[in-house]
């Protein structure tokens, strides 16, 4: 798999503080499907993203001599290499010299306590941890965004923080439904939610799941439309049994 230079954002970017969460439990490893994607190597920073997406990430960013922007090779529409299970989306250097990487993973390595804390941050009502763990375990794909910080020069990964998640349930053959999409409020507005869903969709399509659906609050219908989702296609309506 070819390696590409990763977009490095300049230090002028307004940077949110990093808060580390204590890891109170072992990372949670949900049900692994038999379909195993080749893991990206640690030194491989592969971002297989289309130029149009990078434009949206870069908008409003000042360029200075610390910025390295490398366009991915001319994007071929749907002919693609297999998406690695885990790869670096963004790498940027903070004013204090530490480096932050945002890492996407579809491997579902989610610490359920970290997830609970993230759900708290976005204001979702609490759910029993055992049920949360079971829901993750029973999901076909759990996609995550983690922020990893390290001092420049170190190769060892430092603090790892969960900053986004989306999961999909599926019958492994025809249909998948996306649930629980969330991004840490401190990291919102940077296009990370879009990437999360784009990569999740890509992973599902590469596993040959033809029907990808979700239910969207009215406020986020447009967000998903921009990602390729159509509301009420052919008049088909989402219905719920005695919703609260």
């Amino acid at each position: 798999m070819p390696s590409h230079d990763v977009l490095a954002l300049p230090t002028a970017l307004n940077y949110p503080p990093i808060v580390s969460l204590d890891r109170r439990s072992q990372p949670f490893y949900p049900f692994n499907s038999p379909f195993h994607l080749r893991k990206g190597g640690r030194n491989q920073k592969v971002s297989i993203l289309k130029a149009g997406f990078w434009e949206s990430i870069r908008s409003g960013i000042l360029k200075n001599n610390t910025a390295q922007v490398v366009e991915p090779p001319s994007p071929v529409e749907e002919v693609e290499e297999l998406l690695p299970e885990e790869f670096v989306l963004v790498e940027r250097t903070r004013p204090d010299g530490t480096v932050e990487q945002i890492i996407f993973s579809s491997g579902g390595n989610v610490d359920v306590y970290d997830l609970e804390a993230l759900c708290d941050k976005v204001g979702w009502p609490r759910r029993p941890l055992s049920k949360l763990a079971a829901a993750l375990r029973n999901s076909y794909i759990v996609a995550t965004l983690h922020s990893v910080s390290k001092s420049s020069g170190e190769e060892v990964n430092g603090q790892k923080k969960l900053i986004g998640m989306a999961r999909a349930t599926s019958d492994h053959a025809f249909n998948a439904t996306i649930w629980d999409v969330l991004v840490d409020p401190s990291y919102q507005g940077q296009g990370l939610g879009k990437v999360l869903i784009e990569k999740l969709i890509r992973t599902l399509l590469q596993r040959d799941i033809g029907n990808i659906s979700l239910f969207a609050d009215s406020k986020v219908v447009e967000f998903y439309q921009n990602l390729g989702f159509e509301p009420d296609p052919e008049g088909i309506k989402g219905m719920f049994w005695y919703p609260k």
Partner: protein
Amino acid sequence: TPLPLKKPTHRRSAAVSAAASFSISEESLSSRGFTFHRTVENLNLDHLNSVFAAVGFPRRDPEKIRIALEHTDALLWVESSKTSRPVAFARATGDGVFNAIIWDVVVDPNYQGIGLGKAVMERLVTQLLEKGINNIALYSEPRVLGFYRPLGFVSDPDGIRGMVYSRKQKKKK
């Protein structure tokens, strides 16, 4: 006519009272030669595929159907003792704790109109409620909205919209 399944204050007790208020009892159906099944055991997938085709679904690879059924949270089908073939079917996928989506609700056209679809749906919903799943959803073609509404399903509650990914649809802003 019997009361439809009603929303209770507690969903688990709903399941118990629901069983008492199914629109057609299992006895009534079996006396007419229909038996309920809740597993894929004895379900002939080619016969099921024929029912799908008869109601207008695209014919699907039986091997994929088998995989789909293996990864299905709950399913129900009705067998006609006369033909030993499935005549009604529905299944639900989900995460087993919070959410379930009901798919592939079908009744063989030769057996429609006698309450089999309703019977299957009532029992499937009850099964999901008994598992503690509170969020039960489905995608309904416009012409069968009237079938699901009396069963307790509401479309676009609070403005929530069902959305489906379309590769042709993607807009880039």
